């Protein structure tokens, strides 16, 4: 949408006596935002009132139904300070239950906001007061944990300022909330995925793509994939065919714009609040210095592109020196669409928007086949057609941990899952510029718990794409699974093995875990980690928060299909009031 058209729309909206288009956004998310200065309205203080309700949401000239907090999408920015007490009263004006989960926040489990685990949920017409001490600082977010409300707008950013000095120096800051919006109701999206798993994929391999070479995949490779009933283009379940990718609630044409003065150090607090979309974020012409991941400070590391999985946050510092605009590109990992925003010295400036890059093809590594370090080019000489009947068993139950159910919900078991933390994320392998990898993350301060883990636990992320079933260790949560149990304060090395060909951003409530990425005492703390297809990774967990906590894939449709469990930490002694 051009500036002129926006102005026109505002004029029309004003003439009709309606709230202006801009009025539907909280101040910090309004385009032309000067940044989050103390004068700009955010919700702060010990007592904050939030109201969940229905609201219309417009993007791309179309209006749909959203569930919002205080009437805006994204929800208001909550700005708290480490050491304060937070009392957040949430009133439900919907005709269904709602909830708010404070994502990444360390708090008593009964304040965590997951209906059925932390509390009963908030009934229509009721108000629930969340009351907890704020024990940390950083960039976080909050969202509904009821049904699929998060997918229709019920999410917002949360910043906690440190009690002391912030180790990160910056002159100005902007919150960049990434999300995916569909006019199709998320329940209907999930129904269609169950009916036809490739329903939203408009980038599959075709005969035309073979003949023109555009698919970048030979006939023999295709035959191998087909023999396994696997789709090498199955990268995102829900795609740009129905999603509009938003930045601070603005579509690409509406071009959310944040301002800067050349020479300033600008802190971008990037939050992926999507339901189903991992994004590749870059700002052509500017390097980004990552200073925080998932709210925890890391040693500054400069990069050009970051893949941010659903529910992760990254804080980056950019230092634009020129008097020009820059485009913030948030490209969906499957390249089916992008979010676009601008940072500029003045309004009505824009920079070139790069075209979408080629859709990636999955490789054997994404199926957990290491092939001795060979990449696809190394496999050219193999008879791919015979793969499914000889070289590699794609579903060998002996590779499953004891207790895993190898049933209809397990399509494949990664034969040779690799630790892929040092690898560039999916689709960014061959970018000519720098790309952030998980091993780049080093905690700024050494971790408090230096004990060796006293035991290990392996959890497989399992699924069947053809049935759209997802679970842990072969079971959907609805199959009455046993919770994952930890002794209070025990230190456990948890290994996640991805038996599927999709990325799974796994989130543990109420804790940070240390990603075992070779950084020793400075392993980065995270609340969400994206497990690469066919990959494995480990984290060390100090189970220091007694109670029951959700543990799940943050892809909403994967979670809703069963990739969910409860982490149960006992004993509870001394925590009941």
């Amino acid at each position, binding site marked *: 949408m051009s500036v002129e058209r926006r102005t026109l729309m505002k004029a029309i909206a004003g003439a009709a006596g309606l709230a202006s288009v801009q009025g539907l956004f909280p101040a910090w998310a309004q385009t032309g935002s000067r940044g989050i200065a103390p004068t700009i309205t955010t919700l702060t203080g010990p007592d904050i009132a939030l109201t969940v309700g229905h609201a219309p949401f417009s993007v791309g000239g179309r209006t749909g139904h959203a569930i919002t907090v205080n009437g805006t999408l994204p929800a208001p920015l909550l700005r708290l300070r480490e050491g304060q007490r937070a009392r957040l009263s949430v009133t439900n004006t919907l005709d269904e239950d709602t909830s708010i989960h404070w994502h990444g926040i360390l708090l008593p489990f009964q304040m965590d906001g997951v209906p059925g685990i932390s*509390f*009963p949920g908030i009934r229509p017409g009721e108000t629930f007061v969340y009351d907890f001490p704020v024990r940390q600082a950083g960039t976080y977010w909050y969202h509904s944990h009821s049904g699929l409300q998060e997918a229709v707008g019920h999410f917002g950013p949360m910043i906690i300022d440190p009690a002391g000095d912030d180790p990160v120096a910056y002159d100005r800051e902007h919150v960049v909330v990434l999300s995916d919006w569909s006019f199709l109701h998320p329940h209907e999206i999930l*129904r*269609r995925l169950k009916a036809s798993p490739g329903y939203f994929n408009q980038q599959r391999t075709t005969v035309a793509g073979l003949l023109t070479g555009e698919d970048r995949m030979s006939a023999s490779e295709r035959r191998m994939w087909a023999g396994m*009933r696997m789709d090498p283009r199955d990268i995102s379940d829900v795609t740009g065919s129905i999603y509009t990718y938003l930045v601070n609630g603005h579509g690409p044409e509406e071009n959310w714009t944040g301002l800067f003065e050349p020479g300033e150090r600008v802190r971008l607090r990037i939050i992926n609040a999507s339901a189903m979309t991992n994004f590749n974020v870059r700002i052509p012409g500017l390097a980004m210095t990552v200073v925080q991941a998932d709210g925890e400070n890391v040693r500054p590391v400069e990069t050009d592109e970051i893949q941010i999985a659903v529910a992760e946050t990254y804080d980056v510092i950019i230092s634009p020196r020129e008097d020009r605009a820059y485009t913030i590109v948030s490209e969906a990992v499957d390249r089916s669409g992008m979010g676009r925003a601008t940072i500029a010295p003045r309004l009505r400036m824009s920079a070139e928007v790069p075209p979408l890059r080629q859709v990636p093809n999955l490789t054997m590594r994404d199926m957990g086949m290491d092939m001795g370090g060979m990449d696809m080019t190394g496999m050219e000489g193999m008879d791919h057609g015979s793969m*499914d009947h000889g070289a590699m068993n794609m579903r*060998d139950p002996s590779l499953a941990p004891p207790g895993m159910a190898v049933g209809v919900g397990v399509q494949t078991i990664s034969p*040779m899952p690799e630790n892929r933390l040092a690898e560039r994320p999916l689709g960014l392998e061959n970018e000519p510029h720098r790309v952030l990898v998980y091993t780049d993350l080093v905690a700024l301060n050494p971790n408090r718990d230096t004990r060796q883990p006293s035991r290990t636990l392996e959890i497989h992320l399992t699924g069947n794409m053809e049935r759209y079933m997802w679970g842990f260790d072969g079971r959907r949560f609805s199959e009455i699974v046993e919770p994952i149990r930890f002794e209070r304060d025990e230190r456990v090395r948890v290994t996640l093995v991805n038996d599927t060909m999709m990325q799974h951003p796994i989130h543990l409530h109420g804790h940070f875990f240390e990603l075992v990425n070779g950084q020793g005492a400075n392993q980065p703390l995270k609340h969400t980690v994206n497990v690469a297809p066919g990959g494995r990774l480990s984290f060390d967990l100090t189970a220091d928060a007694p109670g029951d906590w959700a543990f799940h894939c943050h892809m909403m449709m994967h979670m809703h299909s069963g990739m969910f469990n409860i982490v149960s930490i006992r*004993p509870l002694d001394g925590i009941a009031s």
Partner: protein
Amino acid sequence: MRMIAAVVAPLVLVAAMPAAAQDHAQHETQTPAPDPHAVHTTATTPQAIPPASGEANAADLYFDPAAMAHAREQLVTENGGMRTHAIILERLEAGFDDEAETYAWHVQGWYGGDVHRFWWKSESEGAFSEEVEHAELQLLYSRAVTPYFDLQAGVRQSYLDSEDRTDFVLGVQGLAPYWFEVGAAAFVSTEGDVTARAEAEYDLRLTQKLILQPAAELNFAAQDIPDLDVGAGFTDANIGVRLRYEFSRSFAPYVGVEWTSALGETRDIRESLGADTQSTRAVIGLRALF
């Protein structure tokens, strides 16, 4: 004796069919190379027995246990327990050949969870100018038995120009390697007649929207069924090719051509009756997903 044969025959038949359709992983007997990372336990991190359970449902200490129990039920439903439905209109078409203008439909649908489903199928063919030649409705319980295949059992009611029939059905349906959608079923009628049907189709994506679908169907009878002018052995086959344009997955009109032929003794019987035993027709129709 005939009843025993009627019961045994379909079992043999069905036992043979799923074998072809089984998850190919089960054929893979070769042992894969061991995963060097499979056991990553070190001396300092023994795999210990998980701790004892302690109290269940910690939130019951803070909130009304009845309200928590209700919320837990909801949580289960919302994390894998969802029941849903689909209607797949595979074909709704008109056919044209030298003799007549015909119609046909093939539609199926289901309701249920990921594993257990109520499944129904209906199909019909006939000429516009005549009475319904053949219509049938199957009501089935469908259970996921392998990652790619469902086992289905139930009843079929057929409405034929000669007489209506009821069969018990046992079949499999699913996805074979190389993305072939396949199905096979055995039918035992209330008269004790045993018949079977196998179907396969394949979607060849020419572009993202333009899809060429070859499909084939083969029918079999275990014995002569004089009422239906059917002889023992393969009774008829049907091969079609349809080119559809997917305006969306939910709405895809197509054109195509279909060849149908009676086979074996059935062909002889129908020839002796002076009936058509073979036809080729052009078809135009709609594929849809609801």
